[in-house]
């Protein structure tokens, strides 16, 4: 177990192994997301009250899921990097930030264009939407922090601390719709019990969520590999990669 853990800490080993997963992850993300988009846009039934605007759920919910789960990935990587001084974990943390920020932005944007035809407004400062905006600022803060220090070690520590402090926001986002009165409705997909959605509408959503998970893993690996090449450019193995014999 510990040997495996140390191996994982080796950027070279990680670069080599992750390269084998990439094509499969890319294939799975494209197949699942294309299937989900076509199914959700054209073949899932419309909602009795919301009509076709409800189809935005197939982007909105998976993007929100991964925006939140991605924050845990980033914070966990930050904690591992801080405790074990593992360089690879710092790279994963830096790789997760822009990806999470983009997914949070997608969740906010699709929520806004869904809110207009259903609620009657693009934006409202309720607990759910405001805490989601805080998440976007946390991601942006970590991107900014990671670029504003001259030494890698200080930068990694500062980012990890901010990421750890920000984890408090995640359960708040999840539970905001239950704890306070909000305009945003409670969760459709529940931890326990059946989703409050017709199966014909739920199946494409499930495909999209799976697709987004694969997509997240794919882009996280790609970003981490870029970070590895950047930081290990003085090593022989990266030089050999640049100039194959």
């Amino acid at each position, binding site marked *: 177990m510990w040997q495996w853990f140390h191996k994982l800490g080796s950027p070279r080993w990680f670069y080599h192994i992750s390269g084998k997963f990439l094509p499969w992850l890319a294939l799975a993300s494209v197949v699942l997301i294309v299937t989900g988009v076509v199914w959700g846009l054209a073949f899932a*039934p*419309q*909602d*009795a*009250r*919301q009509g076709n605007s*409800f189809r935005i*759920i197939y982007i909105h919910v998976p993007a929100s899921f991964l925006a939140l789960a991605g924050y845990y990935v980033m914070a966990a990587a930050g*904690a591992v990097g*801080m*405790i*074990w001084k593992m360089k690879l974990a710092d790279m994963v943390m830096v790789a997760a930030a822009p990806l999470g920020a983009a997914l949070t932005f997608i969740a906010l944007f699709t929520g806004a264009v869904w809110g207009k*035809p*259903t*609620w*009657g*407004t693009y934006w*409202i*400062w*309720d*607990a759910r939407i405001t805490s989601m905006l805080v998440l976007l600022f946390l991601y942006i803060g970590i991107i900014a922090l990671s670029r504003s220090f001259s030494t890698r070690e200080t930068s990694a520590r500062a980012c*990890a*601390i901010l990421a*750890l*402090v*920000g*984890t*408090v*926001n995640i359960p*708040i986002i999840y539970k905001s719709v239950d*704890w*306070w*009165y*909000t*305009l945003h*409705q*409670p*969760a*459709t997909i529940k931890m326990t019990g059946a989703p*409050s*959605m*017709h199966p*014909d*509408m739920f199946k494409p959503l499930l495909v999209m969520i799976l697709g987004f998970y694969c997509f997240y893993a794919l882009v996280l690996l790609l970003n981490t590999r870029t970070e590895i090449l950047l930081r290990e450019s003085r090593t022989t193995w990266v030089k050999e990669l640049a100039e194959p014999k």
Partner: protein
Amino acid sequence: MKPARKQRLLIVVFIVVIAALVVGLLSYALRENINLFYTPSQVAAGEAPTNAQIRVGGMVVVDSLQRASDSLDSTFLVTDGTATLLIHYSGILPDLFAEDEAAVATGALGDDGVFVAQQVLAKHDEEYTPPEVADAMQQAKDKKAKAASATTKQTDINPENTPKAAY
């Protein structure tokens, strides 16, 4: 685990616990302000300020919506199951605004206890159903209600019309 690592692990735990504590206490202190709207019960209990911009929310009472024939003025009642509140609104109601659905209104509460809204937003629940399924469910509900009223000859409020906790 090496002592140095253990110490760093403790620092990580400490950061998370302190942050959770600070944010938890803050949101507990601000809980009234984090709520987007007041409920009709809170308004009835005098908890909502009058003549100041606030939001109220609740289920729109069935058969309470009245639209003026010559203008965009409309009035309706909202309820949370215990109290009701009359809302005046002049403007276009959102598409999803309907009786027996939740709505949130922004405006001010007058001294006469009537809420004058500048903006009305529709609040929908987390359930999604295809139209045919919704129709079938509605028909089943109507049939049941008819059967119930035929046997008991009751004409008072249908229990289905009492609002569920949708907010």
